């Protein structure tokens, strides 16, 4: 059953492996120096420059490789922070309820309702710009959504019969939470993680608008995409190449997650 007909796993795996391979390669080697400038501005894609060149005559393919790596690392870290802290907060709030739940839920709601750009601006101003600080700023922004999901699942599972019986049998709270309930939330979490990954890449891009994201001349897919909009008319390949990379990156992981979910169901 598991082996048969799960194209999601294969295709998603293939795309992800391809992108990961490119990113790893970009870490060690790029066809050109991603920041080296030549006077060959806005060259269309060719064998020499696979994705053409940008407004400074830099090789877009090399920059996509570098940028994908940066965006990938940022997105993974952000989702990791959001997910882990979200699970901790959400599980305790959902399972125990009470005053702590009320307070934490209020704070999470407030952060969700607060313009993320302003929050990011504050965090970056306090901590200073830099990749780690972007990760921290976005990580904080991503906690509430995960916490909300986990809390909902925990609140739902708390009163289910098998949990009640486990409790009656004297199983410890922590064990119930993390051994009995948490695995049940995985399918929901998995899709939240893929959406979160998507959002993290986008959020970094929107921070670039305010100059809060990755600082030039370094590249990230988000900042490249926002730059490319200016040259959409004369150099559409700039936007298309960068956007294509974002789509492949996200698509690979979404398909992989879908495949995992399906094989999990059938297994």
């Amino acid at each position: 059953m598991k082996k048969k007909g799960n194209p999601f796993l294969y295709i998603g795996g293939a795309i992800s492996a391809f992108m990961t391979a490119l990113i790893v390669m970009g870490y060690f080697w790029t066809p050109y120096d991603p920041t080296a400038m030549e006077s060959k501005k806005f060259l269309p894609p060719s064998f020499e420059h696979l994705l053409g060149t940008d407004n400074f005559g830099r090789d877009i393919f090399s920059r996509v490789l570098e940028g994908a790596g940066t965006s990938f690392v940022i997105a993974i870290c952000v989702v990791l922070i959001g997910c882990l802290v979200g699970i901790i907060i959400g599980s305790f709030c959902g399972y125990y309820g009470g005053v702590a739940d009320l307070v934490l839920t209020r704070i999470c709601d407030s952060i969700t309702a607060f313009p993320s750009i302003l929050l990011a601006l504050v965090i970056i101003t306090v901590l200073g710009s830099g990749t780690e600080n972007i990760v921290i700023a976005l990580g904080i922004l991503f906690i509430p959504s995960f916490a909300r999901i986990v809390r909902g699942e925990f609140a739902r599972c708390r009163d289910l019969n098998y949990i009640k019986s486990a409790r009656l049998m004297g199983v410890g709270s922590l064990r119930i939470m993390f051994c009995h309930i948490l695995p049940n939330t995985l399918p929901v979490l998995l899709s939240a993680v893929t959406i979160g990954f998507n959002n993290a890449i986008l959020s970094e891009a929107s921070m670039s608008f305010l100059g809060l994201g990755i600082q030039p001349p370094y590249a990230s897919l988000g900042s490249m995409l926002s730059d490319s909009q200016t040259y959409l008319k004369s150099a559409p390949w700039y936007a298309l190449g960068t956007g294509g990379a974002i789509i492949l990156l996200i698509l690979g992981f979404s398909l992989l997650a879908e495949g995992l979910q399906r094989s999990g169901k059938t297994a």
Partner: protein
Amino acid sequence: MKNIAKKFLTLIITLFIVSLLAFLAFQVIPGDPTTKMLGTEATEEAKAALRAELGLDGPALSRYWNWLTAFVTGDMGTSYSYRMPVAEMLSDKLPITFLLSVMSFVLTVVVSIPLGIWAGSAKSKAADVAISALDQMVMSVPPFFIGILATWIFGTVLNVFSTGSFISYTESWSGCIGYLILPACSIAIPRIAMTVRMLRSSIIAELQKDYVRTARSRGADRGQILSRHVLKNALIPVITFLAVSAAEIMTGSIIIERVFAIPGVSQLLMTSISGRDFPVVQAIVVILAAWIVIVNFAADILYRLADPRIRVR
């Protein structure tokens, strides 16, 4: 009813926290509004006088209190930058953002529900894979990139749309709505994919339940079961999801307003943040937060109504 009253109270508390956060944010970020207002040439005395005029010289807490009491009585203050009442400025901008959000939302609902039902009733293996794959693909395209693609295809290639040619609703409703169609699509497309996916899995799960089998063994035909029983149950979680979407559309419109150069409230928020125009930022933050909180509140209530297992202890 008691629960709802309680929820409503927490809603107010959330708004209070949000406004406090916005206030604190302005205490933390550097940039004195008087520098922007008077320039680098102005004397310290002039700046001090202006600070006093704006009420910026008092202790932080009392300033927050002054803002809060005024706001509660409906006085949003005067913009530092434009020297005009904030309410007047927002009354121009809010309808634009609101219209964009409503259009995106309506588009999402109108397209995704029939599509989701159709996708949910398609049972063959091939259809299943095709629909899911398409869903995943569409969901992977960031709205921001859809916007860029749309401006490129419709603007540069087909030459039927021009970014920046926005017409305000005050001049022409049809022109305004016409301009907003592409941005609304950019917001809606990934949302449609998400909703279809959700509705589809909800229908499929529902179709596997015992009562469906019972109904079918009694001889009811598939279409009847679907429309009479399954949909009602399957739509409930989707409605909740849509309600959350409504909130997210509003916040997500920031980036789309940017891509399409729509002079909405998000754009005003951005320029006001960089201009340190505190009264404007504070008003927008609270209004946007109110929208989000109220919609989430509605989602929560729907969720509770749908699933009685969730109760406040």
